[in-house]
Structures are given as structure tokens and as C-alpha cells.
């Protein structure tokens, strides 16, 4: 079955290629149109290669009209800000839930499970009210704070931490380590696969998020990549698909490149944690 000759394998490969072409079509045309001058775009030909290259014009227009790098920078600040607090809050809690005996542990874990059932869009209205009350609309805080407690991270890390041998932790205690340093210097390093998987899941989810940034951000210099594209569409580009595709490509590229470099980790991370996607 595995070593079938190529000729017999062809129908299968042809079907897969056809499906792959449909999946890749938006990427192919995104790249092609981003280097085409406007008049060629409007000719609606099926050809992909431009007769006259407009790479400089299109990308130049994007960079001159919207601060793409600022958007990407905002995206990075928000994603890694969220990830930082998620890890900071979830890891110690998960350790306590997995390895320490205390009254109320089951209750805490029950609340974690409850949290898993609630899509984040549910809490948007009161969070907006609260953030408005504190005068924090249009700030990184507004973008980051609502996601700092990831019940999913707590759940995931708890599962992993339970597998760490108690002897390892006891040995660390005998060596005189306190619980806080055990969490960060013994337990977390032993759960790096879980941490990586969660990190990828979290960054992908928040890089792509539109719902929440749209609610709390009105100021252009705090736009995330997703909002930046929306703004560029409405302000400048309209029907200028060359520039629009150039902008789309620029903000899609960082995650896609990261994915191509570490496919396995991405696929594992997102599918393993995907139930909150």
C-alpha cells in the first residue's frame, strides 16, 4: 500500500492537487494581484503574471497610506502581552490544582470547567462597560486585560502537571526550593510541549481576532493587523485591489511564515487546544 508505483498513485495525487489548488487560490491571486497595476486588474484576465510590474506602486501605496509596521507591532504587543499574563496566572494555578491538596480545590476546578463553556464574545458588553468606566478604551490594556485569565490554559497545564512525578517535586523541596520557584523552575520546564502548544494556539487566536479590537479601539495608532486591513479598505483602497492585496499579504505573512517554519508544532498546538478556537 505504501510503496505503490507512481502511475497507480496518480489519480489520488490529481484529486489532492485539485483540492489544494482551490485552497491555495486566494493566496495565489493575492500574490499575483499585489504586483499588478490597476488597469490590468480591471481587465479581468485569468493570467497571473503582470505585463507591467506594479510591485513598487502597490506596496509603496500601502506603506505610504497606513502604518503597516505599527499594526504588526501592535499585533505582536497584544499577542505576547496576552500570552505573558495567561502563562503568569495559569501556570501557578494549574500547579496548585494538580499537585497541592487544599480545601476548595474541587470548587476552583469546577469554575475552571464552567469557564471553558463560555465563549469570550458572551462577556463583551459588561467588559466594555467596565473598561469604559475606568477610562481605558483605546489602550493596550483594553486589548490585553480581558484575555489574561485563560481557563483553557489552566485546564491544559493541569493535565500536564499531573503527569510530572511527585518525587521530582519532593526532591526540589528537600533541596530547599519554595513552591514559587518549583512552579517556574521545575514544573514549567517539564511541561514545555504544553506551553509551546498553548502559546501557538493563543497567538494565532489573538492575531486573527477582530471582534474585540473592533469594540474597544477607535484610534488608528492602536489598530491590530485585522483592523488595519479593514481601515485600509474603507479609507483608501476601495476598489484598488493591487494595494489591497499588498496590504493583506503584508499582515498575513508573519504568521504564515512562522507556520511554514514550524508546521508540526502549529498543527499540534492548534488542534490539541482547538476546542476553544
Amino acid at each position, binding site marked *: 500500500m505504501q510503496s505503490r508505483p507512481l502511475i497507480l498513485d496518480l489519480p489520488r495525487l490529481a484529486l489532492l492537487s485539485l483540492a*489544494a489548488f482551490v485552497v491555495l487560490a486566494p493566496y495565489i491571486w*493575492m500574490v499575483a494581484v499585489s504586483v499588478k497595476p490597476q488597469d490590468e486588474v480591471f481587465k479581468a484576465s485569468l493570467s497571473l503574471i503582470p505585463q507591467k510590474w506594479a510591485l513598487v506602486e502597490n506596496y509603496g501605496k500601502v506603506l505610504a497610506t497606513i502604518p503597516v509596521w505599527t499594526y504588526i507591532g501592535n499585533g505582536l504587543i497584544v499577542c505576547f502581552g496576552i500570552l505573558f499574563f495567561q502563562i503568569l496566572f495559569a501556570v501557578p494555578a494549574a*500547579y496548585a490544582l494538580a499537585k497541592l491538596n487544599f480545601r476548595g480545590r474541587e470548587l476552583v476546578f469546577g469554575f475552571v470547567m464552567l469557564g471553558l463553556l463560555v*465563549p469570550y464574545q458572551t462577556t463583551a458588553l459588561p467588559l466594555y462597560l467596565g473598561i469604559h468606566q475606568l477610562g481605558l478604551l483605546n489602550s493596550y490594556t483594553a486589548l490585553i486585560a480581558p484575555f489574561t485569565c485563560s481557563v483553557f490554559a489552566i485546564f491544559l497545564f493541569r493535565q500536564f502537571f499531573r*503527569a510530572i512525578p511527585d518525587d521530582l517535586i519532593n526532591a526540589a523541596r528537600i533541596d530547599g526550593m519554595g513552591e514559587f520557584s518549583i512552579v517556574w523552575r521545575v514544573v514549567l520546564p517539564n511541561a514545555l510541549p504544553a506551553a509551546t502548544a498553548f502559546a501557538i494556539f493563543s497567538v494565532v487566536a489573538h492575531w486573527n481576532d477582530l*471582534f474585540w479590537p473592533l*469594540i474597544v479601539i477607535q484610534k488608528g495608532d492602536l489598530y491590530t493587523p485585522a483592523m488595519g486591513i479593514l481601515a485600509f479598505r474603507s479609507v483608501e483602497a476601495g476598489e484598488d485591489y493591487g494595494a489591497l492585496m499588498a496590504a493583506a499579504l503584508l499582515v498575513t505573512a508573519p504568521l504564515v511564515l512562522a507556520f511554514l517554519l514550524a508546521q508540526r508544532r502549529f498543527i499540534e498546538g492548534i488542534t490539541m487546544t482547538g476546542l476553544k478556537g
Partner: protein
Amino acid sequence: MATVTGWGPAFCPWKTPMADVAMQSPAVKAPTARARTLRGDAGIAWLLTLPAILAYCAMILLPLLAVLALAFTDYEFGARSFRWIGFGNFADMLGDRTFSASIRNTVVYCLFVAPLSIGIALGLAVLIEAGARGRAFWRAVFFLPVVSLTVAMATAWQYLLHPSIGPLNALLRVIGAGTPNWLGSSDWVIVSLGFIGVWENVGFNLVLFLAGLTAIPRELYAASEIDGARSGWSKFWLVTWPMLGPTMLFVIIITMTRSIRVFDTVQTLTQGGPNNASEVLLRTIYQEGFHYFRFGYSAAITLVFLVIVLGLMLIQTRLIDRRVHYG
């Protein structure tokens, strides 16, 4: 607790190599877990959980309770006061044409995206699994949409589907077929958005199915051959299909809960139009709350949304308890 944990990785029917570590080790370690380190000083435990508990209360629990309360008020953002109006908001929904369009479109969208993205993903997974060539390559290609910025890719789709300059209609013109206004006509808009939704979800489901397929013992196929299942087709129905049962259930629920949250593509491409033909639940919540500032009404719709999501999860946990185990 078992019913709720049905959502966690511990009960996931598939097994990626990494997930194995998470899922199996706790079971393997069960005896040690019983004899848990009892040195547990409650003070330290609470100290370790405190940041998470505070953040949880502020960001999840209190807002959730607040939404529950808001849904029964006529509160408008910026208003100085509000009244409790009982089920008034829910009564208003019944006569709200935007809301009923929104529910209908969301249901149609889900019923379009779920079967197609699941069927196509299963077909592709079986095709990939049937040979050795380019496995990682295919997986990466089909997974690409999952990691791509939805707003940007929606823009690319908008160009592909453009009525006059889009390549799709250029192609249709060549073969002499009709050229619909994919995103601009109320007949086609949900189908077009649904197609983009399928495109977004196939890769995700595909990876789940691949994991499910890898877990099927090879001997079962050999055994089915002895029983007379010669063709790939009969092997599929005799072995693959029943063995994929648990994965299938999981994928169905995941896809439903993912597609019921459709927002980005609609907001980017159609803003709910034309004439409410692509209005969907999350967009209605957004619009009512943050455009018209009718927080009470928006909260009530949020509750409807939450109940649907919880209902889907309930179905899953009910079925998982009863699911058949093979192998």
C-alpha cells in the same frame, strides 16, 4: 464532573503524538496521583491560585453574571438609569426581523459549513492516508487557512468572487456559465460566505480525521479483507467509518461551535447585507450593542447565543457518555 470534562483533551478521541503526553500520562500515573504530595499547605495553594481567581472573577465570572442581569433590563449605553423589564427583550426578538434573519442565516450557514467541511475533510484525509507521497505537504497546504488572518483572506476572496473583475466569474464566462454577483446578491451571499467558511474549516477537521485514521489498527483492514471486503469502498464502510465514530462526533460539534461564531468574514465583506441577507448572530450582538448601544437587548441576544453553544456542548457530552468503543 465527567460530563463536563468531556470537553477537555483528556477525552479527545484523537491522539496527536503530543496530545499523548497530556492524555495518557495522567492515567499511567494514577497510583502516584492518589498518593499526592500532602505537604500541600493550603495558604500557599491559595496564594498560587489567587492571581488566576482574581482575573477569572473580573474577566469571566462577573461579566457573565452582568450579561445575565443586563438581558432583563432596558439599559442603553450612556443612559443614567434603567428598568427591569423581565422577558421584554426576548419578547421583542420575536417581532424583530433583523434578529429572525440573523438566526435563520446563522443556522443556514452552520448547516452549509458543517456537512461540507466535514465531508470534504474526511475525503481528503482518506486520500492522504491512502498513500505515502507528500503527506506532510498536503497537511500543511490544507491547514494554511487556519493560521491565516481571516480579514485579509476574506479580502482576497472578495477579489476572487468579484462580479466583474474576479477570476471565478472570468472562468465562468469562458465556459459560458452564468456570472452571479456572489457577495452582492441576497440569493448567493450566504452560499459564498459559507464556501469561505468551508475553506477555513477543512484543514482543521482534516488534521483531526488524519489523527483518527492513524489510530485505526492496520489488522482490522486485513481482517475485513478475509471477510470479503475487497474494494477500498467496502473497507471504508466496514472499518474506517465505524472506527471514526468518536472522532466524527467531536468534529461535528467543534465545527458547529466554530461556525456559529462566524463574524470576521461577514463584517469584512458584507456588513450583514444586502438587506440583512447575511446578518449573523455575533454581528447582530455587535451591532445592537456597539452601534445602537442597546445593551439590554444585545445582552438578551448574547444569552440566546450562549444557550445555543451550551446546547451543542450538552449534546456532545450526552453522546460521548454513550459512545461505542471499538478496538
